[in-house]
């Protein structure tokens, strides 16, 4: 197996966040595939109960269990890798936690009836997050006989950017409530994993004002938390506009060379020319304006100082083939 340098060597828990609509789940899945290539075993974990992974891989809804859902391409000489998926929900994680630590096997139903499940997983602030991050930390630390680590890497499709620092900063969240006690001990263990150099938080964004702003705010918030490491910034659905030099500004200003455009369209033998040319000119200038705005946003992202990657927009929707393409692009850019 060849060793490649990537930007995240040594990172084993990849937390992927992003504003709603930025394609966070897609990027998390592509990253898992990219990390798995060359014979690695990767767990892709979902924590928000949307069954986004199942939809993406076109399989029936996934249970609270680790299932193999994809294989990754192998290196020229080696085996392909494997991606496992886990849909973690707080209720199951709580039942598992109680079973593991207290052998409370049948507590689940009684607790549900009394409203304790509701309380513990949705209302008791922070507890829900500890249970979910706890599951990820457990998978990262898990050992398998004869193999060492059970997983080479864990990729978590995490909550959106606006909630990420609170989600990961579980100790602080829980310590507001529990200064001592069992859950506090559990939270501290989880925190050691999350605050170790083995964990990085990647941000998925589009080149639009609001997701970019949230990404910058998110990076800033993580830095303030001291010990939780912001990772890469992945610009998703990028659509670069290929225009001859100097034409971008002209197009953005609505002053592109209409004569030259018309000439080209004539050469291509198109019908209905004046109207089509006018329409195309409008499209170009709209796109150029968008591109100019995006350039500014991209600069702001780069100034944040984290590595930036770009994934192309896939015009016919992301299917499994598209995921592999995105995974390859992530590897090309050394994100994995």
């Amino acid at each position, binding site marked *: 197996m060849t060793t490649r340098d990537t930007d995240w060597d040594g990172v084993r828990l990849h937390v992927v966040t992003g504003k709603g609509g930025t394609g966070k789940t897609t990027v998390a899945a592509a990253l898992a595939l990219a990390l798995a290539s060359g014979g690695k075993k990767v767990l892709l974990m979902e924590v928000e109960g949307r069954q986004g992974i199942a939809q993406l891989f076109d399989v029936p809804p996934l249970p609270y269990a680790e299932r193999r859902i994809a294989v990754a391409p192998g290196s020229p000489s080696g085996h392909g890798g494997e991606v496992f998926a886990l849909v973690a929900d707080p209720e199951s994680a709580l039942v598992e936690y109680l079973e593991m630590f207290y052998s409370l096997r049948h507590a689940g139903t*009684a607790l549900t009836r009394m409203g304790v499940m509701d309380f*513990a997983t949705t209302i008791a602030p922070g507890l829900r997050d500890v249970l979910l991050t706890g599951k990820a930390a457990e998978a990262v630390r898990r050992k398998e006989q004869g193999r060492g680590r059970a997983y080479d890497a864990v990729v978590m499709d995490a909550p959106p950017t606006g909630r990420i620092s609170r989600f990961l900063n579980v100790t602080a969240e829980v310590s*507001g409530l529990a200064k*001592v006690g069992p859950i506090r001990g559990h939270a501290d263990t989880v925190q050691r994993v999350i605050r170790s150099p083995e964990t990085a938080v990647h941000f998925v964004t589009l080149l639009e004002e609001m997701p970019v702003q949230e990404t910058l705010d998110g990076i800033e918030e993580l830095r303030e938390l001291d010990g939780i490491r912001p990772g890469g910034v992945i610009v998703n659905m990028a659509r670069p506009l290929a225009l001859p030099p100097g034409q971008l500004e002209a197009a953005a200003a609505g002053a592109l060379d209409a004569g030259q455009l018309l000439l080209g369209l004539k050469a291509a033998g198109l019908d209905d020319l004046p109207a089509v040319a006018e*329409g195309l000119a409008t499209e*170009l200038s709209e796109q150029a304006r968008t591109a100019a705005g995006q350039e500014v946003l991209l600069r702001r992202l780069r100034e944040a100082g984290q590595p930036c990657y770009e994934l192309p927009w896939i015009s016919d929707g992301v299917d499994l083939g598209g995921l592999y393409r995105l995974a390859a692009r992530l590897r090309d850019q050394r994100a994995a």
Partner: protein
Amino acid sequence: MAGRQPPYLDVDRLIDDRRNRILVCCGSGGVGKTTTAAALGLRAAERGRRVVVLTVDPARRLAQSMGLTSLDNTPRLVPGVPSDSDAGDAGNGDSSGGSLHAMMLDMKRTFDEIVEAHADPDRAAQILANPFYQSLSSSFAGTQEYMAMEKLGQLRRAEEWDLIVVDTPPSRSALDFLDAPQRLSRFLDGRLLRLLVAPAKVGGRAYMRVLNAGFGVVTGVLTKILGTQVLRDVQTFVSALDTMFGGFRERADYTYQLLRTPGTAFLVVAAPEPDALREASYFVERLAEERMPLAGLILNRVQRPPAAQLSAARSLAAAEMLEAGAAPYPLAVAALRLHADRMQEAAGQRRVAEHFTAAHPLVPVAEIPAQPDDIHDLEGLRRIGQAFGSR
């Protein structure tokens, strides 16, 4: 192949109808809900309504566009909004003129206000200082939804506006808006909390024996999970809250009922993408189940290439032909490739929109074309509003 056409959602008629008092914009995150709510509010104000827009988490520039600079939980008059009736009457403050107010929700402040309204000052201070209350009021996943509903109820009761446009919190699922308030109020008024405080109050003896068995397990488990100190905080919180029991559920129920009255209309906002429209479908079905009045679907960011007469295939072929030719036409090639992309995207959008309409043929639809620039001023919001006035 022409897909089935949905009925047209006449937004102007909706906002002009003075019987409509509340418009709720819902939908999954990232579909432009807040912008749509702001654009609706502005258009309604300029057509003579006295409007307040309740936003939860607006983008900075959007907030600025409405003159909102701080999250202060108070409706502020948006400057620079002329009303239709301005020309006709010179008087200011005339009730026939429209106006636009906007506010950002401060959920903690709103929660504090409920406590202050329901408890005497000493007790209120005690609750506000409780660590469990502080976590609950600032970070519980459903608090934002609950407080948005509460604020809506307050604005409605104030009778200062004749149209309230609500932008629902940015949750992963549009349904959280309906479910979270009830979940929280069920908890606050529920059996578990009463048990934690004073099991003896709950009921007769026989009932108690059954409950006590469960209760032992419950406190045992909670102690195991949280530790005794947390439980003590919760108990202190609950006993301080004792006088307010019932109040939470009543308030949540009031707003829930408000959403069912004829003066309320729901607008489901979605981008023409599979995820957003799937979420929109769930919401449409849920509204029907709850007998809540759906006005229609607003499809945001619809791709409408101006040169639509030129097909994607033809455009790509032309680009390839030019590239293979002797003379370079880089500008034309760029234009043709871009156009092919946009046509493909438009076709994809139409496909998912048709799927939605096939499943919900009676739901009226209005479209907002994709905007080349971010919206950062009233002019931008106005442009979006104009899309409602033209088919």
